[in-house]
């Protein structure tokens, strides 16, 4: 109304603002302007005007009442809207995490909303009733703990149990205990249980990542702090792991642990070209959802958290070093008839050949003397430089966290050079070792292990900026030796042969160093496998910790009798899962 008034003049505005009452002064003006004949208002006029005023007032009031009545009826019919009170105070800060999926998009870890049981001690009527009834639903919640949580009546809040299942929450609700309440919270679910638990890592009670890929998510700023249970809208993190291959590896390794009565086992399948880890298993496994398992020493991740002297599988590296120097060829003769004496320590072979061996035969027969002589010919400095070049002496880290750094000998003299040549005196984590081995068979370029499918590594390899660490010819020669070790029937790895695919590899049986020297019967037997040999795509490393001689192995504990056949069973099972076509060329 206001703008219209302004344009039509002051008097009208006055009139409008005072309703329909015409003030004497104004009416004079109006009459003067209109008729030039001032006529005093008659009684009739006054009555008429008041009637109109009353009519208008009645109409307005009537309409207003009608509208209010109508609205009341409408609200009554519609039902009253609920009252909502928004609590914006940050009570408990939670963390919304994106899902973790495998390379094919299968869920490995995800947030779900679960009910947590809380209590308001000041409202609780009967502590004894709660401490008696609640354990009927939650048997592991002791009455004493409930009494302790509810003892302080001045408090308004106490957690009783976080992360209830829907069924448990319902049962507790049905108990009808005053003072208890539920609060929805984000909880991390690991639907696969122990599968890949070591790599996934785990979170704390507030959903914050503590280890493994979960900690990586926090570091990569993919985790949002939230108030209340709101799920993360971020895209899932895609790992390089394959749930199917991971399970096949777990299944075969636990079978191997039973067969060979080993205390523990570890296995890894890695893309030889990109370093993407397709499966990584350390048994006994770890369930990220069970907090107590994290501190059990036997459940340590043997692939990354421990360093081990891996034994003769190291000869692959020694041979690569010798061949890459250009001074030794696969057919170079090495005289292994005499035992090697270095710094007063005798080095001998378990089964001496009795005649000179070629470099290839040193590899196939796994001759310690031969490997030692090849390493001595290179010298300690060259060996150190070569191991550094392929990444075996410097600490390494992956997305799943830092890898246990290699334990190098304090003094690196001739005797250390010889022992390292066959895998003693230098302890590395299996993950670091397999990454170095991948470079030996993939044409010679360095490999950085990764657990992400679309990480920086993939981009790096696609762009072609590969770091060459050994010559392609050396890599080819190493492949031939590894293939011959399995396929020729002369090597230690004959039991790793798989029908339908060409496999290469190297065995290693390492005595475990204990207090005051090596323990005779306690070994780690490992098999480093490569397939398919025409164009290596995958490398595997299977390690059995302290296997026992069984009738199946003829009472032996060497890798050729346990780790090699276990690798064969693993490869046979995962070849179709990896999309490789078994070929009838390989019987």
């Amino acid at each position: 109304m206001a703008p219209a008034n302004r344009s039509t003049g002051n008097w009208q505005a006055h009139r409008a603002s005072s309703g329909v009452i015409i003030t004497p002064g104004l009416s004079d003006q109006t009459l003067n302007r209109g008729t030039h004949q001032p006529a005093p208002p008659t009684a009739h006029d006054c009555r008429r005007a008041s009637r109109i005023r009353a009519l208008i007032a009645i109409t307005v009031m009537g309409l207003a009442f009608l509208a209010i009545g109508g609205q009341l009826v409408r609200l009554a019919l519609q039902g009253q809207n609920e009252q909502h009170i928004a609590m914006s105070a940050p009570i408990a800060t939670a963390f919304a995490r994106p899902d973790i999926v495998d390379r094919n998009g299968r869920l490995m870890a995800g947030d779900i909303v679960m009910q947590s049981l809380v209590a308001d001690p000041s409202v609780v009527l009967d502590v004894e009733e709660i401490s008696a009834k609640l354990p009927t639903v939650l048997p592991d919640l002791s009455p004493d703990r409930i009494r302790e949580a509810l003892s302080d009546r001045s408090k308004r809040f106490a957690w009783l149990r976080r992360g209830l299942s829907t069924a448990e929450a319902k049962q507790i609700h049905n108990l009808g205990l005053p003072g208890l309440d539920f609060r929805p919270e984000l909880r991390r679910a690991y639907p696969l249980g122990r599968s890949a638990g070591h790599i996934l890592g785990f979170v704390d009670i507030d959903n914050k990542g503590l280890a493994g890929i979960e900690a990586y998510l926090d570091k990569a700023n993919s985790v949002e702090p939230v108030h209340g249970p709101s799920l993360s809208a971020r895209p899932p993190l895609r790992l390089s792991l394959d749930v199917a291959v991971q399970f096949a590896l777990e299944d075969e390794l636990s079978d191997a642990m039973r067969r060979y009565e080993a205390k523990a086992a570890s296995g890894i399948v890695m893309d030889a070209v990109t370093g993407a880890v397709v499966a990584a298993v350390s048994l006994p496994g770890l369930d990220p959802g069970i907090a107590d398992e994290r501190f059990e020493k036997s459940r340590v991740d043997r692939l990354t958290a421990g360093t081990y002297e891996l034994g003769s599988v190291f000869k692959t590296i020694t041979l690569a070093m010798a061949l890459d120097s250009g001074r030794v060829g696969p057919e170079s003769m090495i005289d292994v008839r005499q035992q090697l004496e270095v710094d007063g320590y005798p080095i001998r072979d378990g089964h001496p050949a009795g005649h000179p061996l070629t470099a290839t035969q040193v590899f196939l027969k796994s001759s310690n003397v031969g490997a030692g002589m090849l390493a001595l010919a290179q010298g300690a400095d060259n060996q150190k430089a070569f191991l550094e070049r392929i990444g075996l002496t410097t600490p390494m880290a992956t997305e799943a966290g830092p890898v246990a750094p290699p334990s190098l000998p304090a003094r690196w003299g001739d005797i250390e050079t010889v022992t390292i040549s066959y895998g003693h005196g230098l302890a590395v984590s299996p993950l670091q070792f397999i990454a170095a081995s991948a470079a030996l068979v993939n044409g010679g370029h360095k490999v950085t292990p990764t657990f992400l499918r679309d990480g920086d590594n993939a981009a790096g390899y696609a762009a072609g900026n590969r770091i060459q660490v050994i010559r392609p010819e050396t890599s080819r020669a190493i492949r031939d030796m590894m293939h011959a070790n399995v396929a020729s029937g002369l090597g230690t790895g004959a039991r790793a042969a798989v029908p339908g695919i060409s496999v290469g590899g190297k065995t290693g049986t390492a005595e475990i160093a204990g207090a005051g020297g090596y323990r005779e019967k306690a070994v780690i037997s490992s098999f480093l496998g490569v397939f398919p040999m025409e164009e290596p795509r995958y490398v595997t490393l299977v390690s059995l910790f302290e296997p026992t001689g069984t009738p199946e192995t003829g009472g032996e504990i060497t890798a050729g009798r346990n780790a090699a056949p276990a690798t064969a069973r693993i490869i046979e099972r995962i070849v179709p899962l990896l999309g490789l076509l078994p070929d009838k060329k390989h019987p």
Partner: protein
Amino acid sequence: MRILMTVAVFATLASAFALYAVNYETRGLAEEVRQREQKIEKAHRDIAILKAERAHLSRPERIGEHARALGLRPATRDQFVAYPLTDPLQSNVAR
């Protein structure tokens, strides 16, 4: 002039009612939006739980057991052929 005034007054009242109605309608809509958002949130939560349950139920460990009970075994090399078939007579299909 009177008529104009009356019309203006009624127009004012009418627009006031209209405004009131629109205001109420807006509040109703906002409430509806809030309810739908809650439903979406609930659906998201349900989806998250269902996804986790599906992943738990379809874990290879469990499927393997069921498959073996049905008499299925892991694929063997005889069950694979190169595609397209280069020589049907030599392929595994022909046998």
